[in-house]
């Protein structure tokens, strides 16, 4: 079904509630609706059209249209369509009906909207602070345009404590994190434990929220942001820079040259290769199998080196700009890349063969961290977590971007819904990535790698882009703006959705399985605000405050 047909269906059902619609292409649909109709329309799209929920975005548009905007993004995966439902809210006291009770996946996005933009989701089942730090004053919303990017609230209350929920009767609280040996980044789970069994948990994260969106919207320029976007994640950075560039490109309808698209594809797949190998290594490390951890890192290293050769850096490629890429792949590098892929394939095959029969790993991962089809739908799970539950979604095929529409590859799915299936999905996807890069090297033709942009980008255009990151779909929403920078840029990393399902995944299983369950979504949180030092001789505890720590780190040597 085409975008137009979907729009007609919506019009029949909701008539005058739909104010206007934009169909910039066959793959994008923007529907502007009455605020009161947002909830029924979203429910209709999610339940009756069976679309996948992507993200909700709150936008302070007061300087331009005098209103607040809310957008709910959905993906029609089989129809190659990304759809956004937008509505305008009054500038005073913006409120919107919460959709979280009909679409549980929207819970975090709405809480974030409430924290950062101050749009109240009326009827939200769990309206608790999500993103802002504990001491942040109420009523100050950092993503509003009247708050400057470098604003430091004077009434920040250092001593204010976050109110955690009471554990259910009969349960003890076991804190997991903010720092935990198996987490590379800080996140805090309060596990409610009954004996050995986890009965529930409360999550408090966003400790490394760095205000990247605000920075981009207020001081950076279009071509600065890819480098910033790349630093959203230390593993799938290239994914974010490409997603950002594509969302701007889709907003202003510019198309990068074919060779640039192939190079982007190659870099994205190189990133997936190193990420999957890293993940398999880390997953083995979490279950205590360090031999394979060492071997996957050894096998991974040549990929880092070839990426360094192509881009100039082993991880932060800084390759992507709007309208193309920065560096070309030389013919001799091509040959070298082929050799690296051959070696990788030869080395990875025996590893997969050995691991897939290893009963020790299976004992630790089978029927652990189960996320079934229903959870995938309700929570909007993406990537290997969804594919391991038999949900056949992959943005590379469903929402083709870069050069993927010209390439052949299989989407790997498994049926087990557990951690073991996720291991298998990732292990097999490595071979698909190798296949994709080989085809790219074969098919890419000579030509320019950067589109010549002659005019400034027009303001007020909407752009969406989804890219299949190693962890799942990374989705960016952009409104182009004045002064050579976007008005609004919203990033939704795959972990944003997947992490919301962790409480359901770890429920009623042993506490020892918590680490691998969490590890199996390949979580990507991303610095700290407090540190405690203990003088061992006197046993005196000194708690360093945030200010003291900042002063310490900024002190020049």
């Amino acid at each position, binding site marked *: 079904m085409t975008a137009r047909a979907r729009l007609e269906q919506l019009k029949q059902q909701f008539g005058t509630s739909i104010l206007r619609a934009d169909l910039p292409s066959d793959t994008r649909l923007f529907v502007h609706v009455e605020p009161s109709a947002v909830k029924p329309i979203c429910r209709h799209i999610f339940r009756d059209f069976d679309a996948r929920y992507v993200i909700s975005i709150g936008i302070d548009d007061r300087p331009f249209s005098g209103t607040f905007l809310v957008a709910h993004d959905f993906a029609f995966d089989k129809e190659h369509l990304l759809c956004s439902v937008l509505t305008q809210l009054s500038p005073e006291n913006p409120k919107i009906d919460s959709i979280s009770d009909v679409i549980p996946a929207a819970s975090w996005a709405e809480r974030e909207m409430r924290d950062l933009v101050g749009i109240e989701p009326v009827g939200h089942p769990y309206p608790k602070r999500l993103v802002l730090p504990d001491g942040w004053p109420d009523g100050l919303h950092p993503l509003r345009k009247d708050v400057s990017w470098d604003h430091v609230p004077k009434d920040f209350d250092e001593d204010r404590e976050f109110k955690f929920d009471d554990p259910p009767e009969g349960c003890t609280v076991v804190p997991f994190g903010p720092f935990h040996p198996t987490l590379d980044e800080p996140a805090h789970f309060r596990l409610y434990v009954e004996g050995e069994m986890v009965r529930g948990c409360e999550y408090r994260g966003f400790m490394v929220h760095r205000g990247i969106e605000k920075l981009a919207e207020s001081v950076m320029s279009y071509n600065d942001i890819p*480098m910033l976007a790349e630093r959203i994640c230390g593993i799938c950075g290239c994914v974010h820079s490409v997603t950002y560039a594509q969302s701007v490109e889709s907003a202003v309808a510019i198309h990068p040259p074919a060779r640039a698209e192939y190079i982007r594809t190659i870099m994205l797949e190189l990133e997936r290769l190193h990420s999957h190998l890293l993940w398999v290594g880390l997953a083995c490390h979490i279950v205590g199998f360090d031999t394979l951890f060492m071997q996957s890192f050894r096998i991974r290293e040549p990929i880092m080196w070839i990426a360094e050769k192509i881009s100039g850096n082993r991880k932060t490629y800084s390759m992507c*700009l709007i309208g193309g890429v920065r560096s070309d792949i030389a013919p001799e590098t091509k040959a070298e890349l082929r050799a690296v892929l051959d070696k990788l394939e030869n080395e990875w095959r025996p590893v997969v063969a050995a691991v897939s029969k*290893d009963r020790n790993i299976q004992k630790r991962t089978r029927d652990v961290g189960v996320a079934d089809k229903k959870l995938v739908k309700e929570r909007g799970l993406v990537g290997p977590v969804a594919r391991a539950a038999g949900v056949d979604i992959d943005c590379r095929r469903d929402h083709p971007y870069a050069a993927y529409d010209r390439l052949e590859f299989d989407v790997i799915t498994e049926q087990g819904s557990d951690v073991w299936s996720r291991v298998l999905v990732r292990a097999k996807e490595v071979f698909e990535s190798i296949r994709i890069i080989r085809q790219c090297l074969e098919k890419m033709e000579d030509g320019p790698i950067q589109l010549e942009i002659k005019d400034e980008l027009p303001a007020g255009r909407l752009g969406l882009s989804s890219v299949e990151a190693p962890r799942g779909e990374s989705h960016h929403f952009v409104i182009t703006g004045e002064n*050579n920078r976007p008005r609004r840029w919203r990033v939704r990393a795959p972990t944003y959705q997947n992490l919301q399902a962790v409480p359901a995944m770890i429920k009623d299983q042993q506490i020892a399985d918590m680490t691998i369950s969490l590890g199996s979504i390949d979580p990507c949180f991303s610095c700290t605000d407090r540190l405690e030092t203990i003088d061992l001789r006197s046993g005196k505890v000194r708690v360093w405050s945030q200010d003291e720590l900042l002063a310490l780190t900024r002190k020049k040597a």
Partner: protein
Amino acid sequence: MSVRSKLEEAVICLKAGRVTLPYPAQPRPVPENFRGRPIFDAAKCIGCAGCANNCTARAVLVSDVCQEIRILKYVGSRCTYCGRCAEVCPEKAITMSHEFEIATGSALDLDQRLEIFMSTCQRCGRCFVEPSPLEQLKMKGYRFDDLQNDRWIFRSRAFLENDTVVDDIAIELD
């Protein structure tokens, strides 16, 4: 059979042999286009401030001490080595070197400071060749970044003096 898979895994390990490189005794040579510490060449620099305007990390600061002298300060500790400065420099005065062992006890060791003779330039922004409109100068006219505290100041003198025109060039006020 789990024993068999254990044996297979042992073979994988044995086959690999020793892979650790003898670093730092013999550092691995870096590729040709490696982006290490940028080196600023004062002899080639014309002081257009294109690098400062397109630095994603705001690691290049500009301060005009008088009509003739412009100071460019590169704050090395803030650099992310993306190489955009070298790319947009119209005079190719910046090269991304192959230096990567730049750990130091003092962050100031990484800084570079250029004092450029500006002739009679009015800081119009014309000498910076924009690769595309996306790389335009954010600020034309005289600039007074805070070199002491390594801070960008989003104001030109035109702003401070409430003057919208420098020479014949209209200045955008923030």
